[in-house]
Every structure is written in structure tokens, then in C-alpha cells.
């Protein structure tokens, strides 16, 4: 393994982390194709590396968000029962999937993420009226409006199903899967956007930790490669956060949706070949 390859992996990690934090989605969906299609790693090695960066991103982001009441710890733990179960099952069954099946699943998921990014370009907080938060709801201070926001969680079973699917996708493809459940929590379960994003960021760490040990046991985590990717993603996302305050991300979201659509087509072709 050459130093050049290590540098390329770190560069891929930095790019993915930068894009991920700028767009408010995890960088995994960019990192996995960069490692697999770009640098030629086996899909499962790329996914295993992606999972390690997902855990690092989850811990780093949640450490920074903690203390602002945005993370709904109790809702997160309930949903983690479903997402960790999905991750555990996926980590266990992924080795039975062929490369073609994995490519097909990845193609479908990237197409879905691209579509979600375009349709949710202008989503802001859904501001709930003052309500009794109930056992799973929460309240936090919204810096944008200066108001105290209280919300109640609705349609919990739907949130559980979304978390189960996001967990299974995460464990199969090595991405965080936050963008698959945040819109559902926000649109149908009554969780304001920022609380949904913060809770999801905490959840993806536990979800990835339910499948990563199985990749590790199969020898699919290559230590120097994983280290380079994790450090790259951490540096890249720090840079992205520092940037996101001063750039308009709308055009970037459009551009990246196009890139993801292209990635999706690439993987559809791989699945069919």
C-alpha cells in the first residue's frame, strides 16, 4: 500500500466531509463511491471505512451540539432501538449480497437522496405552537426567532419504520442515512428541523456501531485506510462548518444533486453489467 493511496483516501475523506457538513448531510454518500468507484476498493471495504467516518462524525457533531437541548435524547434512544436493529441485521447479512445487488441498492439510495436534496432546498423549522411536549417531545431555544419552541412527537411507529430502514441502509452501504429519516421526522412526526437533524446526528453513531464490529471481524476494515479516511473527514467537515456560515448552499445542493444522480446512474450500470 503506497503513501500516495493513503493521501488519496485522506483527500477523498476531506472532500466528503467538507461537502457533507456544507450540505447538512453526512459525507458517507460521497465517500463510499469515491473509495469504491474512484480508488477501486471493494464495496464492503469502502462501506466499512464509511461506517468508521460516520461514527467519528456523529461523536464530533453531537459533542458540539450537546447542551443546547436540540438533541432529543429520549426520542433518539427509542428510535435507536429500530435503527440499531436495522444496522445489526444489515451488518450480519451484507456478506450474502452480491456486488450487483449492493450496486443496485446503492444506486436506488443515491437517487432517493438526490431527489430529497432538490425537493427540500428551502426547508426551515416547522414552528409548533406551545404544546405539552409529552413523554417524547422536547423544547429548545430557537436562535433564529429568539423563541422557545415546544414540540410533541406524532406518529412514532412511522418514525420507527424510517429509523429501521435508515439503519439497514447504513449497515449495508456504510453511509449515515440521516437524510433518509430526518425529512420523515420533520414532515410527519412533528419534530422541528434542527431538533430532527441534531437527534439524527447522535443516532447515526450508535447505528453504525451496530454493524461496524461485524465488518471489523470479517477483516474489511483496513486500519491505515480507515485512519486516513476518518482524519480526512474530520478535517474536511470542520472546514465545511467554518464555511457554511458565509456561503449560499442552494446552488451547491443543486450541483451535488446532479453529481449524486450521476453516481446513481454509474451504479445502476454496474448492477446491470
Amino acid at each position, binding site marked *: 500500500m503506497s503513501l500516495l493511496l493513503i493521501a488519496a483516501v485522506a483527500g477523498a475523506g476531506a472532500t466528503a466531509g467538507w461537502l457533507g457538513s456544507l450540505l447538512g448531510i453526512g459525507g458517507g454518500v460521497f465517500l463510499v463511491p469515491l473509495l469504491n468507484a474512484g480508488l477501486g476498493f471493494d464495496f464492503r471495504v469502502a462501506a466499512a471505512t464509511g461506517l468508521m467516518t460516520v461514527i467519528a462524525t*456523529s461523536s*464530533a457533531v453531537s459533542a458540539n451540539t*450537546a447542551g443546547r437541548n436540540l*438533541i432529543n435524547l429520549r426520542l433518539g434512544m427509542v428510535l435507536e432501538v429500530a435503527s440499531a436493529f436495522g444496522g445489526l441485521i444489515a451488518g450480519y447479512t451484507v456478506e450474502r449480497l452480491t456486488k450487483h445487488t449492493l450496486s443496485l441498492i446503492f444506486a436506488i439510495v443515491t437517487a432517493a437522496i438526490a431527489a430529497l436534496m432538490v425537493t427540500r432546498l428551502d426547508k426551515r423549522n416547522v414552528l409548533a405552537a406551545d404544546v405539552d411536549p409529552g413523554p417524547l417531545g422536547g423544547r429548545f431555544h430557537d436562535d433564529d426567532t429568539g423563541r422557545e419552541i415546544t414540540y410533541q412527537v406524532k406518529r412514532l411507529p412511522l418514525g420507527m419504520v424510517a429509523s429501521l430502514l435508515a439503519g439497514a441502509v447504513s449497515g449495508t452501504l456504510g453511509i449515515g442515512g440521516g437524510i433518509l429519516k430526518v425529512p420523515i421526522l420533520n414532515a410527519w412526526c412533528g419534530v422541528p428541523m434542527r431538533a430532527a437533524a441534531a437527534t439524527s446526528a447522535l443516532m447515526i453513531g450508535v447505528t453504525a456501531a*451496530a454493524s461496524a*464490529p461485524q465488518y471489523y471481524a470479517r477483516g474489511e476494515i483496513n486500519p491505515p485506510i*480507515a485512519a486516513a479516511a476518518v482524519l480526512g473527514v474530520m478535517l474536511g467537515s470542520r472546514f465545511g462548518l467554518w464555511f457554511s456560515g458565509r456561503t449560499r448552499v442552494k446552488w451547491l445542493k443543486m450541483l451535488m444533486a446532479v453529481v449524486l444522480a450521476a453516481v446513481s446512474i454509474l451504479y445502476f450500470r454496474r448492477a446491470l453489467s
Partner: protein
Amino acid sequence: MTGERPESRATLDGLDRLEARLGHLLRTGVMSAAACLGIGLIAWMVAEGPLSRAILTIGLVILMVTPLLRVIVSLVAYARMRDWFFVTTTVLVFVMLLLAWLLRP
């Protein structure tokens, strides 16, 4: 679902303290993992061998175990609050994370 109403002061304070504690835990976990991975990677580039491999492995294991520790700390906090619904929930998550290490194909 739970015996105690969530807006009671004691529960809210308990959750605030838990959130702050988890924040510290996650920061410590990810920073010590990153330090091991950085040192290990440099050691690996200088001389590939058992030492560099061990440092890298320690870093990766710290990274993977941090979410598990987060769940254990939450479990203790909910037990102290006597919030049995969330104790049960947290135990379920804990068991699944443990199975991830123990289940072998």
C-alpha cells in the same frame, strides 16, 4: 408511557446534565481516537510494523466503543431517574450493540 411527566423540573435537569455529560464523553472519545489514528498513521508511514498497527487498532476500537459507552452512561442516568420505560429502551439498544461484537456469521 412513563410514570413521570417530562416537564417536571427534576427530569428536565437530569436530562440537561445527561446531555452535557454525553457531550464530554463523545468529545473525549472522538478526540482520543483521532489522536491514536493520527499518531498510528504517522508511525505506519515511517515504519510499517506491529507497533503502528496496534496504535491504529486502538484508535479504531475507541471510535467503535464510544457509542456503546454513551449508551451505558445513559442507562445509568435513566436508572437513577427511575424512568423504567427508558431503562428498558436503553437496555435493548445496549444488547444490540453487544450482539454486534458477539454475533459471528
